[in-house]
């Protein structure tokens, strides 16, 4: 047994020591995304967007004369795994900067590690307010907070006919879903819209019939749904099956892709809040960049509706790249300082960070754009 243990140790040592060192070693950027589990669809979209960004950077000569290499870790739609993934990236792969971790819950779990090891992270999707109010100076968020989303949606209220008078909520019961319903509720109340019933659902649930039948007779005209692609699809389908009278509006930027191929009943309409609408790229702030991204995505053969989230990965990596260029180095502290000064033209719009959070320990926050689209009989159009 002593032999097998020594053998194991030297095997470990050998494997690690044998890590090849390339002549001009690549710049490593860490990516923590849910590639398996309950929100795997979105995680894969974002990662694909990141890959396109990395490929584009490398085609144009790389960063600081070196190639960019994405080190991608699967956080398995789980906050504990998100912590593991971050530690692996930081301690084992020694990445100087990370993009992640998709869900607010996973990002919040990762944040203490960022502070412990001094590594900045660009948050590409998570929307909970807590993230930038926690006083963590290593966080830079390009995605909107739920509050921003609610305010942006307020501007689109007029596009709904009949107008919204009373709303119900169906949210996934984690930081994201609960935070979103809170912020939207606040916004609706400010405009005199009545709040009906609020239901929650666990992230892994596939049968929402209990929640939906509870929402059936509330008298509301609109149901706000916040969850990932899979659950939105199931929810909309089952709501249609139960003939729920409310019109459904989804938030959070996810699009129920499977409904394009297997649409709901004839004439059934749902609305979706997105941060990028690949069906109407002309409405983007920088149509050339959006168009180029859409082309690259299609060329890579990724699924079209995934663009509605894939752009986040793209914008995230581009932001990091700008910071590395600005810093002129791959040291975490330098990258962090440089992030404050980035001005990137991304697929969603212009990206730059303002200070958010407690004095002296602010995080960076961006102010993005919001689009609303309508899905009917498998076709998408602007609302």
């Amino acid at each position, binding site marked *: 047994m002593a032999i097998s243990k020594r053998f*194991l140790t030297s095997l470990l040592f050998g494997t690690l020591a044998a890590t090849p060192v390339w002549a001009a070693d690549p710049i490593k950027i860490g990516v923590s995304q849910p590639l398996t589990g309950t929100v795997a669809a979105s995680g894969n979209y974002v990662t694909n967007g990141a890959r396109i960004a990395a490929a584009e950077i490398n085609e144009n000569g790389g960063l600081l004369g070196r190639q960019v290499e994405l080190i991608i870790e699967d956080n398995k739609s*789980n906050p504990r795994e998100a912590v593991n993934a971050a*530690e692996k990236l930081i301690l084992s792969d020694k990445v100087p900067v990370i993009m992640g971790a998709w869900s607010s*819950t996973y990002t919040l779990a990762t944040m203490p590690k960022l502070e412990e090891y001094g590594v900045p992270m660009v948050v590409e999707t998570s929307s909970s307010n807590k993230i930038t109010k926690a006083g963590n100076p290593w966080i830079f968020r390009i995605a909107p907070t739920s509050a921003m989303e609610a305010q942006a949606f307020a501007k689109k209220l007029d596009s709904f006919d009949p107008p919204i008078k009373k709303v119900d909520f169906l949210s996934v019961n984690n930081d994201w879903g609960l935070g979103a319903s809170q912020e939207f509720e606040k916004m609706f109340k400010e405009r005199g819209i009545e709040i009906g019933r609020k239901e929650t659902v666990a992230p892994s649930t596939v049968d929402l019939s209990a929640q939906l039948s509870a929402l059936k007779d509330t008298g509301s005209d609109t149901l706000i749904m916040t969850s990932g692609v899979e659950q939105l699809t199931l929810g909309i389908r089952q709501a249609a099956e139960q003939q729920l009278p409310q019109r459904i509006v989804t938030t959070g930027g996810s699009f129920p892709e499977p409904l394009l191929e297997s649409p709901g009943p004839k004439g059934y309409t749902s609305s979706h809040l997105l941060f990028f609408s690949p069906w109407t790229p002309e409405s983007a702030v920088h149509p050339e960049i959006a168009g180029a991204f859409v082309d690259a995505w299609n060329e890579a053969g990724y699924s079209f509706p995934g663009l509605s989230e894939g752009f986040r990965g793209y914008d995230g990596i581009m932001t990091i790249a700008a910071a590395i260029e600005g810093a002129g180095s791959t040291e975490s502290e330098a990258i962090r300082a440089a992030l404050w000064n980035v001005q990137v033209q991304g697929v969603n719009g212009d990206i730059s960070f303002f200070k958010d959070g407690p004095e002296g320990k602010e995080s960076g926050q961006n102010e993005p754009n919001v689009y609303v689209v309508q899905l009917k009989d498998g076709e998408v159009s602007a609302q």
Partner: protein
Amino acid sequence: MNWTFFGIFVTFLGIFPFVWPDPYILSVIGSAGIMIIAAISLNLLLGYTGQLSLGHAAFFGIGAYASALMSLGFDVDIGFGITWQVDPKPVWVAFATAIVVTGFFGWLVGKLAFKVRGAYFVVITISFAQVMRMISLNWTDLTEGPMGMISIPPFSLWIPGEGVVDLTSKAAIYWLVLAVGVLAYLLVAMLVNSRQGRAMIALRENETLATSVGIPVTYYLALAAVISAAIAGAAGGLYAHTVRIIDPDVFLFIYTVTMVIMVVAGGKGTLGGPVVGGLIFGLMPELLRGVVQPEVQWVIYGITMILILLFLPRGLVPAIYDFITWIRTPIAIPVRESRRALAAEAKS
């Protein structure tokens, strides 16, 4: 058990961080160590007492949540207008409480074992773990549900000259896990070599016979269950204060399966089995990382486990012992000679 070997091994492990201070390696071995402690506890129930409990992740999880909750403090409304409020306690107190609480649950499970056996017991233990998971997922007031409990305080130790130090460095965690692991190992070793231990083994071998010679089956089952659960709870508590974030997925069947693979492959019913199994299956993910995807790794573990069960059903450690014995056995006497010897004996 071989004390010299044990002593050398522990010393080696103890000085390892000085030889190789890479924090990542230490954290990998530390995590493997926590699973090994859980495997040691499972071995007591599965290997020595012969009770196939496949819900062991439940004890691990209860220990983790109990310790986390005690150290963070909580305030919940348990209906009828009653609130149960607990202030945050020092981590060592929380840890000790968690061990006791988990031991209690172990006693409950042990009691259940009196009523049902074999396959039925297995299914109950699995269900128990799943129910625990559902509760931790949905009683969000207490456990934060899928968001998990974050910012769990770490252990702290008073070190002469340094004052109170938070045990957050990878090396500190490594030594903490090593200390608890050695304690757990010694506890189990003492137990199985005692009267109580022999009674448990008798239970495993032939329960009816054991009862007939007067061994109180229920008492020993309960004892084994309590101690096994308590050690698993300790592992859970360690996990909570070193990883410092837990979520309902700690109750997942896959963690029980991992412990089972470690015990079965290493050798159930042997002291070294869970350690060997734990080191192999705890470190393999890191060795294979980057070489093959996690799914492929699990396929390998599954196949390894099946092969071991088919060809080396008692596990690796007994197989190695057998192998060593086989090497050392002198070459057998030819048959003719042995017959002559026997015949000569019979005559005399």
